[in-house]
């Protein structure tokens, strides 16, 4: 059964149709990269899959209708890392990561061994054990990003939706995070992450979904999505695309000539 099955999905924000006719199926253990230019609808698609924006069409999470799921039940199936990294209060990193255990706990229940283990695992996986006692608001942007992902990992949902998780991370931490997502996928968690770095997307994702103007224009293995032709049409760029032993390498080189320029 698919983790996420979307069909006929449409959504409007402020009167504008931002998603049209979306059909998407994510199976267990898949690492899907969501790509597309700014304003293509990537964030909205992720948020629609959490029920955060009003939408029409069908969204099934582990076979259940999203709109009929109780909020806490939904949170046990899907976790989310928002693009916004604003943390309102100076709570400790450990307390922040522990928030991910909320959906698994009763209203006034104390943390169980399982909760503690999940928090430890998440801290370790994101390499932030050393930060555990620090105030989350005092961290650098990159540290905050890792802490917030650890929070989502502690939620231990089968599906992880991440909005621009690598934005603002240095190359080493970008690669480390991609490795984390890969490992999660290998252990059966499905990951859908929106990203702008086509190189990372090409090398690490099982599958890429390319959005343009609220529609899916391509969906498949990186090599079939990241063609020079599609990149030129959708992004308006020329890119160097080549298959190497280590995987697909994509490097944007320059802006594509517009039609006007071609005519001249």
């Amino acid at each position, binding site marked *: 059964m698919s983790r996420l099955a979307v069909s006929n999905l449409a959504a409007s924000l402020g009167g504008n149709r931002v998603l049209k006719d979306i059909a998407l199926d994510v199976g267990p253990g898949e690492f899907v990269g969501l790509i597309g230019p700014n304003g293509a609808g990537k964030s909205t698609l992720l948020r629609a899959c959490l029920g955060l924006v009003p939408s029409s069409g069908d969204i099934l999470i582990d076979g259940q209708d999203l709109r009929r799921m109780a909020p806490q039940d939904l949170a046990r199936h899907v976790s989310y890392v928002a693009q916004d990294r604003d943390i*309102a209060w100076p*709570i*400790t990193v450990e307390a922040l990561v522990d*928030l991910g255990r*909320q959906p698994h706990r009763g209203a006034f229940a104390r943390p169980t061994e399982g909760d503690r283990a999940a928090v430890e695992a998440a801290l370790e996986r994101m390499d932030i054990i050393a930060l555990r006692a620090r105030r989350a608001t005092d961290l650098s942007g990159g540290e905050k990003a890792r802490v917030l992902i650890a929070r989502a990992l502690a939620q231990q949902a089968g599906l992880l939706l991440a909005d621009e998780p690598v934005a603002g991370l240095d190359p080493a931490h970008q690669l480390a995070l991609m490795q984390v997502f890969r490992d999660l996928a290998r252990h059966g968690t499905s990951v859908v992450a929106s990203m702008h770095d086509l190189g990372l997307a090409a090398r690490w994702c099982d599958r890429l979904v390319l959005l343009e103007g609220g529609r899916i224009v391509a969906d498949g293995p990186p090599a079939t999505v990241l063609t020079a032709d599609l990149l030129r049409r959708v992004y308006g760029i020329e890119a160097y695309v080549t298959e190497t032993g280590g995987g697909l390498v994509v490097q944007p080189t320059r802006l594509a000539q517009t039609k006007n320029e071609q005519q001249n």
Partner: protein
Amino acid sequence: MTETARYRLLIAVLAMVVALLFVLSLTVGPAEVAPLQGLSALFADDDSLIGLVMREIRLPRAILGLMIGATLGLSGAALQGYLRNPLAEPGLIGVSASASLGAVIAIYTGLSALMPLALPLMALAGALCAVLVVRLMAGADARPLSVILAGVAVSTFAGAMTSLALNLSPNPFAAMEIMFWMLGSLTDRSMIHVWLAAPFMVFGWLMLASLGRALDALTLGHETAASMGVDMRRVQRLAVIGTAASVGAATAVAGAIGFVGLIVPHLLRPLVGARPSRLLLASALGGATLLLAADILVRVVAPGRDLKLGVLTAVVGAPFFLVLVLRARRQMA
């Protein structure tokens, strides 16, 4: 010491301080009653004059001081968590002023004389309007500044309408009573007031107290909180009605007392590891501490002058507010 152990210690200490101040509040008053004699008269089943003073004047005053302080502290902590805004507070966002307006309308039209429940209900309605307006104005991102600006507008409007209502009253004393409604006092309240306000306050407390987990989750923003299983519509309902009920009832019997909801959560936040859920109980106790202490102080510092509580809380609170604004400005820069 772990954070949890420190939290428990803090709660225990605060609870003891509240108990101590409660007893102290019973022993302070314009009439000279020896403390021990007074306290024993409280429990003696006779109709002595001292017993009358203790049971009918000082006891309700102490109870209201405790309950209203707890209400202001708790609602301040809850509003800050809910709006993700360290400047939010029932006084500053206009809830108290609007509750005053509701109470003033109930009293000076004679409605509350016909139906006593009209007093807390009208105050609640006033408070409800203010919370809804501020919530609406603040928008989804609830930027600190827009919340405060909306609060200024609401407060000013409610204050003006309150003085209009008092000016229009045929009773010559009504106009002087604007001081009570804007600055608050516990002087010569009775058990009647306690019974009128307490149920609403307790009802509001229960609603606000149930917000703990949701407020923790809201640390990471509305969308992340929603993704963690927090039902945002339920949270909105609880926060709005809980604040309106508890602050409305408190204001109906004691007037608008400012800044308690701002100072208390702010002082206690570092002591509870900044966790919004833990801040709730701590701020309730802290608010009770502050208001009981302030109410003792007004009786000791200026006996016979009926100093208003809001004067004391503003003297401490206003500089506090300015410091917080400075800090917020530095963060934005």
